[in-house]
């Protein structure tokens, strides 16, 4: 981005910013990553803490949405049981592209404490849906979740819609 030199330009009094399409679109996208309002287990409590005023995930443009149709990111916040796995996959498929997944906590990363005797637990949500960022912890603190969110923002910033559209 660069500001035009005011002296040489014909639109003297207006503020004109020049930027690339990718940069502009990505900047808009990463600043309004709407989150699906969706919690699975105790990690959801930390997600709620991150959404509340103290950690205020809203300052990153993350707004909880009640529908997968309006969401850009899905936080898998907690233990994915086998019963929930097919539902999670359905919700993922209902989200419009481009979509991003944050796997939050040990359970959804790899099964967590249920890795051996959890007959009912999916050992990692990446067995059913693709994951962009894994946030370790049991449960991760809100700061860790925010770090994960910023990693997604970094990923969005580097993507190019124009080139992939060809």
């Amino acid at each position, binding site marked *: 981005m660069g500001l035009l030199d005011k002296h040489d330009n014909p639109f003297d009094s207006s503020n004109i910013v020049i930027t690339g399409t990718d940069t502009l679109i990505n900047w808009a996208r990463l600043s309004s990553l709407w989150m699906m309002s969706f919690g699975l287990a105790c990690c959801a409590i930390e997600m709620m803490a991150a959404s509340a005023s103290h950690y205020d995930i809203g300052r990153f443009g993350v707004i909880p949405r009640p529908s997968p149709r309006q969401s850009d990111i899905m936080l898998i916040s907690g233990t994915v049981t*086998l*019963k929930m*796995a*097919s539902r999670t996959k359905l919700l993922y498929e209902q989200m419009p592209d481009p979509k991003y997944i944050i796997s939050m906590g040990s359970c959804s990363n*790899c*099964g967590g404490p249920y*890795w*051996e005797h959890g*007959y*009912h637990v*999916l*050992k990692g949500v990446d*067995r*059913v849906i693709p994951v962009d960022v894994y946030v370790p912890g049991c449960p991760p603190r809100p700061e860790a979740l925010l770090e994960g969110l910023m990693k997604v923002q970094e990923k969005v910033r580097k993507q190019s819609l124009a080139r992939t559209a060809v």
Partner: protein
Amino acid sequence: MTNTEIYDKLKGAFGEKIGEWHEQTGSEYMKRMSSYADVTDAGYIRDVCLYLRDEPTLGFDSLLLLSSVDNGDNTLSVVYHLEAREKKQYFALKVTVPADHAVVGSVTDVWSHANWQEREAWDMMGISFQGHPDLRRILLDEDWVGHPLRKDYKYPEFYRGMKVPY
């Protein structure tokens, strides 16, 4: 009325159908909550419970907890913890059935809140409750195979195309 007096009263009413009295050691709380009477005939449990509820001197109007145990010797047990809320009395009953023919009489028409607890015992331990109005799985999906809290339960390799082991 002490628990042994209640037991004697039961024994007087049902005779051979009531087995031994198992007095627990430990604190007063343990003695009160964990001592139990055997019911030898699993089909008779409803009548015993009805008597405990309707006999004016007893008045056990609440089923605190219905739990199931795999004893590991091819027998399963169902434990009933009862409370008489007005008289502040507690009593426990235990029924033991063979694992390959685990059928116990339902107490849903004695205490309606036994309904879901019996469904859970069916889901987890495979104990069939005769006379239950709606004996379906309550936690796992309908197409789940087996009853996972039994000691001889084999973990599935796949469930709906999802790999289960770590």
